[in-house]
């Protein structure tokens, strides 16, 4: 009996001590589509955040404390995103790097604002995210109005006089991006031959593809995510169409080439200038490669988001979200993807979208505006 009491005391003491140790950690969160059709990008977000937290802890942490990372899954579903946001707010977490799908980030941002959480999204590009005057939002990527302009200009220069079709998947991101591209195209004097929507999650696009065939479409612009774009491309090639497919930043995922196989060659999409090639990123890219991770897509953007918050929190001397946000908007930050400055809405001042082309070996490379 005495031994049991002693053992119980020991366990209790160690628990108390360990919880005291945990009290020393600052928990931050990363939220994204860890499951579901966008899970490859969720993995990118997670990799970026985990590496950033590890590096920051190795350099001494924030305000003398180590960082702990809480990973949350929204499955690219607005309802789940909202409840994840409530959960993170309830846990008293001061900062979240997330989400990815604009249709998730936007409802989540309202919950974060109510619960005093600072949100920096690595990959939500829909303009509405920063246009509603919420104090707690910022992003590391560009916006769809910029992206649509770049896409529209490219199409106007390289597909003059051809038949263009614009598709969207009815999500916040997809429709927003497709409409911005349509606006840019119409402004350049080009009218699209076909404007249609499909449902995200559908697999059969053969009817739509036959319609593209009947209209002799030369370029189809897809405002949507990579899985449906990949299926549309695959089914187009199955039906004998040589139409070029162009998409947005959601197509910067390696899985796209797994779905299409070598048929991916010639597909175009817009994304920021490849962060892996920037000199500021070289050392960190090597660290990722040492772990057998290719930091593609939004990996380094997430890393940058955590970096910005860390630097701002250190500068402000506190993790209080409102004070940190004021600091972020007032300063310029050196991150893995370069120097970033913010405007009062939370958008970065640097415009950066370029056009990429997939090859037949499952890789992609930048192309110049003049097309190649």
């Amino acid at each position, binding site marked *: 009996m005495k031994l049991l009491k002693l053992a119980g005391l020991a366990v209790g003491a160690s628990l108390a001590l360990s919880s005291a140790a945990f009290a020393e950690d600052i928990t931050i969160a990363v939220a994204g589509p860890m499951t579901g059709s966008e899970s490859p990008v969720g993995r990118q977000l997670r990799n970026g955040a985990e590496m950033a937290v590890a590096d920051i802890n190795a350099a001494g942490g924030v305000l003398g404390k180590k960082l702990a990372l809480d990973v949350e899954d929204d499955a690219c579903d607005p309802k789940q995103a909202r409840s994840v946001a409530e959960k993170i707010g309830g846990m008293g977490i001061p900062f979240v790097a997330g989400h990815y799908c604009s249709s998730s980030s936007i409802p989540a941002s309202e919950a974060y604002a109510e619960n005093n959480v600072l949100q920096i999204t690595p990959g939500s590009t829909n303009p509405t995210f920063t246009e509603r005057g919420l104090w707690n939002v910022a992003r590391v990527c560009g916006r769809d109005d910029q992206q649509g302009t770049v896409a529209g200009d490219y199409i106007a220069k390289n597909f003059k006089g051809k038949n263009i079709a614009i598709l969207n998947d009815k999500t916040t991101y997809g429709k927003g991006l497709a409409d911005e591209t349509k606006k840019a195209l119409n402004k350049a004097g080009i009218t699209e031959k076909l404007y*249609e929507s499909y449902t995200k999650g559908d697999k059969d696009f*053969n*009817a739509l593809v036959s319609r593209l065939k009947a209209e002799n479409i030369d370029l189809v612009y897809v405002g949507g995510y990579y899985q449906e774009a990949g299926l549309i491309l695959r089914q187009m090639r199955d039906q004998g169409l040589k139409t070029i497919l162009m998409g947005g930043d959601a197509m910067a995922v390696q899985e796209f080439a797994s779905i299409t196989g070598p048929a991916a060659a010639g597909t175009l999409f817009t994304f920021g200038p490849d962060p892996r090639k920037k000199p500021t990123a070289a050392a960190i890219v090597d660290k990722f490669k040492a772990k057998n991770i290719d930091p593609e897509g939004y990996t380094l953007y997430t890393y940058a988001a955590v970096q910005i918050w860390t630097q701002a929190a250190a500068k402000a001397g506190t993790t209080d979200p409102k004070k940190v946000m004021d600091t972020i908007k007032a300063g310029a930050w050196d991150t893995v993807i370069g120097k970033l400055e913010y405007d009062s809405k939370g958008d970065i001042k640097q415009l950066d979208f370029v056009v990429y082309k997939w090859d037949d070996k499952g890789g992609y490379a930048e192309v110049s505006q003049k097309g190649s």
Partner: protein
Amino acid sequence: MDYFAQQLINGLVLGSIYGLIAIGYTMVYGIVGMINFAHGDIFMIGGFIALISFLVLVSFGLTAVPVVLLIVLLVSMAITALYGWTVERIAYRPLRHSFRLAPMLSAIGMSFVLSNFSQVAQGARVKPVPPIITGGYTLHQGSSGFVVQLSNVQIVVVLTTIVLLAIFTWLVARTRLGRDMRACEQDQTMAALLGVDVDRTISMTFVIGAALAAVAGMMYLLYYGLVDFFMGFVAGIKAFTAAVLGGIGSLPGAMLGGLAIGLIETFWSAYFSVEYKDVAAFSILIVVLIFMPTGLLGRPEVEKV
């Protein structure tokens, strides 16, 4: 005319896959009077097993496409049938004499169990597979330049569906098992009194339904090249709708319903708008049910006195 022909091909292939799944729903309803909501997920399991079998066979160095396809077909039918049998034993048989809704609730629960099991066991990502059957035929080159294309995969899907439907119709009409199924469908108690092993017959119904769903899963994998853990949900709903449209309890009805849904979706996309194709399919379902409550080929419940 060419455009119509191409869309007809698209619709028939899509409809065949729906039809294969719908048969499982309709058979189970006919014999035990319950909607097997887990059936869509059995279809998903079938797709996954087909994918895994493919990868295993390819890693063994087998590359002759017809041989691989046949083996994968048999293996996925067998293993998925085992899943179907297990689901029936665990989730439905104990509740057979319970209140009417109990098996249905159990089915919904089983549906979640299966899709989450798949998510945990196989990962949350979509699993793509490079095109296995490639090539096709140019059927007709129209004067406007529109080319009607028929791919080999489409031929395989439709042929497999026809063959299986033929085998299955023969099974129900001419074999002892089929006679037992029809007997249980008409009057379970009487059939038991006349020496039919009701438990075994019901189990076999689930097993055959699961096998057909496995074929649908394999066709889906060949045709679209993707499987994921939540594909059972939407396909299940559409196939269930197809079964109801064709007349729940009627076998040819299930196939007819499947083809109808596939054709409606395709032709609506072709001539009106892609955006509202699902709205169109379900609206037509409602209209049909208003005028023909038991579906297109359904038999009204006859009260025997």
